[in-house]
């Protein structure tokens, strides 16, 4: 439904988006992930025809947003980062205005506005001035606006930003409901949201595609090592020294952060260590290393009071992806991207 091929956007000599290639299939819900300034908003604006790409080619439902703007604009519901709201209009008036803008036939406007109000839970405030609504409601009005005209494609730029947890859950629920009938591309920097809603995640950083995959697979595939959390009763320095001697252990650090040390009674429970195994170990090998850790510390009479794996969440992946600068990883990811095509 949405197709980008080697799309770039420069502002002067600075590239906001560089050589971006991905596609979103019909009915798919895709999360668009990246830190501030990664080029998410720019990409979405290019898709909606708000600005032309400097280079490359992109289509929405087979139409070029610049060459055939009306064809594209009629098929897209767009919620920009800042909801485009007129503070001096009531919610209903505003949605009617949008329905006219989107060329909804006169006889269907009423139904569509009513439906949008209902779906976004705005029925109670439909006759209030938008300027008098809370931030959460305004965000919903923005979303309702995107739904007007029953566009097959929804582009949602940070749809849950500024909402309270209850509202976030509601909006996520709504997006999930929309998933079946719409193609959705939503950007976010709230990772649980993407994990919760999206079937696929596209991660960009500094205008470049970093990775794209299903949330779970992405987490697994990009794991760089296995992390454990270790708590021992006894001298942490000695433990560290011993553990470093074990083959398969990549690093051992004493975690001196107060919150890691615990307080009061818990402090007596021992000192915490952060332990990372060599990456790429087979499952069996990993277990062997863990057994080795146990026996080594037992021999030195340093009891292990806790040994727990640290689960690698998408959040960590994300952080790693966007902070990793080493050429090794760049090549790695790029080759993966190539395989994906």
């Amino acid at each position, binding site marked *: 439904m949405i197709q980008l091929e080697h799309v770039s956007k420069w502002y002067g000599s600075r590239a906001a988006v560089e050589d971006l290639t991905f596609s979103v299939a019909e009915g798919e819900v895709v999360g668009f992930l990246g830190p501030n300034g990664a080029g998410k908003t720019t990409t979405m604006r290019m898709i909606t025809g708000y600005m032309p790409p400097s280079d490359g080619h992109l289509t929405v439902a087979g139409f070029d947003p610049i060459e055939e*703007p*009306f064809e594209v*604009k009629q098929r897209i519901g767009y919620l*920009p980062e800042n909801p*485009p709201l*007129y503070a001096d209009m009531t919610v209903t008036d505003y949605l009617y205005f*949008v329905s006219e803008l*989107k060329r909804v036939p006169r006889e269907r406007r009423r139904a569509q506005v009513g439906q949008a109000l209902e779906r976004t839970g705005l029925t109670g405030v439909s006759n*209030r001035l938008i300027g008098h609504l809370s931030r959460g409601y305004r965000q919903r009005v923005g979303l309702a606006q995107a739904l007007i005209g029953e566009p097959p494609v929804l582009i949602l730029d940070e749809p849950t930003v500024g909402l309270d947890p209850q509202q976030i859950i509601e909006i996520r629920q709504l997006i999930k409901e929309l998933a079946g009938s719409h193609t959705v591309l939503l950007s976010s920097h709230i990772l649980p949201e993407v994990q919760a809603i999206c079937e696929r995640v596209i991660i960009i950083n500094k205008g470049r595609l970093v990775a794209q995959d299903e949330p779970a697979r992405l987490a697994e595939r990009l794991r760089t090592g296995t992390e454990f959390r270790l708590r021992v009763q006894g001298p942490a320095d000695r433990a560290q020294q011993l553990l470093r001697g074990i083959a398969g252990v990549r690093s051992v650090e004493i975690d001196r952060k107060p919150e890691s040390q615990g307080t009061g009674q818990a402090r007596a429970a021992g000192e915490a260590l952060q332990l990372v195994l060599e990456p790429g170990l087979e499952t069996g090998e990993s277990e062997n290393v863990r057994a080795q850790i146990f026996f080594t510390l037992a021999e030195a009479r340093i009891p292990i009071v806790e040994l727990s794996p640290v689960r690698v969440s998408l959040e960590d992946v994300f952080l790693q992806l966007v902070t990793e600068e080493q050429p090794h990883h760049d090549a790695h990811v790029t080759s993966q991207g190539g395989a994906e095509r």
Partner: protein
Amino acid sequence: MSGLWTIYRKELRSFLVAPLTYVLVGIFLVLGGYFFWVTVVTSGIASLAGFFGNTAIVLIFLMPVLTMRLWSEEEAKGTAELLLTSPVSLGQIVVGKYLAAVTLFAGMLVLTAGYPLVLYLFGDPQTGPLIAGYIGFLLLGAAFIAAGMFTSTLTDNQVIAAVTGFGILLLLWLLQWAGDALGGGAGEVLRNLSAITHFVSFSDGLLAAPDVIYYLAVIVGFLLLAIRNLGRRLWRSLETGAQSVLLTAALVGILVVVNILAARMPWQLDLSAEGRFTLSDQTKQVLREQLPGPVEITAFVRTGDDSPVPDLVRAYAKASDRVQVSIVDPLREPSLAQQYGVQQYDTVVVQQGGRTRKITPDSLYTLASDGFSTEFNGEQAITRAILELVHEQDRKVAFLIGHGEVASEDELASLFSDLEGEGYSTEFFNLAETGSIPAATSVVAVAGPQSDLGAQELDVLRRFVQAGGKLLLLLDPVTRALPGWESLAGQLGVQVTSHIVVDPERAAFLDVLSPMPELLAHPITNPLIERRMEVLLPRSVGLVVREEGAASGGGAAGAPGEIKTSALLRTSSEAWGEKIQQRVQVRKDPEDPVGPFILAVAVEGRVAEPVTDSEAASKRSSTASGGTGADGSGQDASQPGAESEGEWQPLAVVVGNSTFIRGQFLNLQGNRDFLLNALNWLTGRKSLISIRPKVFKVPTIALTPRLVWNTFYAFVVIMPLASLFVGGWTWWRRRAL
């Protein structure tokens, strides 16, 4: 189109719920109402021209504030992203918003409907200028709104948009001053680009193509620029900064060219009551069919004067490609004014084929019969000047010298300049030297001889008159006897007394030696009588008409056939004659002859012999209806039988005074007109065309003091407050939504 309609309605609605709108409307009504009150109610003129002119300046400040939000706000609030990603075109967005603002402005004009209502209730306004004024005001506002729409697309900051818009409007306004200061062709181009230049004639009742096209061009230009501003982000734009500057310059250039081309477009709708912008069919025909070459018309008008002259001469330029017109402020271009000897504002100089006619304001304006309005004869005067330049040779007036006559160029400079403007060439000649009258002389003028005429000279002059030559004889009171001159006058049926005229009843400034004689009806004096002008003749010699009416010359030495005399100027019957001395004793003695005396005589005769070719031409058209302001009826009556042999021909004008043509005396009262009329009558210059003068009636309105204050309260206090109240109420009503 549906997109445009959607945007339009949304925008209009935004205006109507914004408190700022009501504040602006309130300010507009306060100032507009005040200007109306000052220029109409308190001054008694039933015209909205003053209201429009002053309020137009208010628009320079108001309009940018009204329009600043049009796009800047969309940009600042992020709603631009909604509009630009919706299936509406940029044109629909820009034009929709623009039309909404124009509609609001039109609504503001509707709120001023009370002004014309007052005019119609208590005065007699002219409907045409009123309608044209409103159309012009709407166009002006619409052009300002377009400029504001454009500046609003430059920035997301409304204050910057408003200030920029204000700057542009001020520039459009001031271009006229710049044009005035610059002068010449470049100045005219600048003036033509100014929004004020094109605004002025609307409230006089003219809907002219150049003015309308100017505003439409400004509107279209700014809207295109606005669309391009928005499109620069939206389109796959390849233009660089330099290209975009070029593109803007090209667009502005095209608009300038369109405007310059439009300036010569003749289409116009004249809604003024007196048709001040429309030339008569006669003039149009003259311009169309009778111009052998280019005609230049230069009007000397003071900048800022409410003069009909510029409108009139521009109408000539529009009517014919061969007419070149320039409007000159003599203060700014004194050298040009000096070149043509222009001494008064509203002087028009017409040039054709190297010859010049100067039309002074005296022949442009006359007081209408109601004693209040002005009649404007400009078209008659200019068209006549053109016809004369095209069809007539200059006539030569030869001033005889050698007998102590006025011979100084200085003393006659003013007269000569006027004569030149009227199509006369002048020269001095001494008959004793030349022995004959200079060739092609139409009129021999003798201005105050102090010594007598020789016998040979007398003979030459007699023969000249017998051959149909014209004589202007201005005789002064002279102490010695002048039998030669008396004989010449006698042959013309006029006896010269040896007394200086004392008229205690009709005298200027109680100087009994400066009679202001009664004007007797004659083609020479009629225009002065109509205009209630006097002739002032300091130190005059009394004349006696020997035989009033038709008589035979009877003189022994070759009578010129029958002659007919008509007295032109006559003293009161209280006048008497004093003996001519160096120091005149003004005391009525029994032996002093008593008045009334004749001070000027027109002489006609029947001339049998054919005259010279040039004289024949004038003879053919020669009638009794000469003079600057001759009426058409006299001309018509004299047409039949113009070729007949026995027709009465002007022969001479004899005046018992020559002082009145000297130096500044010429400018006193009707002296100049009297002399010019006499010359025109002598040379048989008829009015070549007769165009009804335009009467400029000042529409009036009279309100009782009570009503004056009621209109003040209604328009300056209540209406604006009502606007603020509605705004406040709107806010209050929506406050709880």
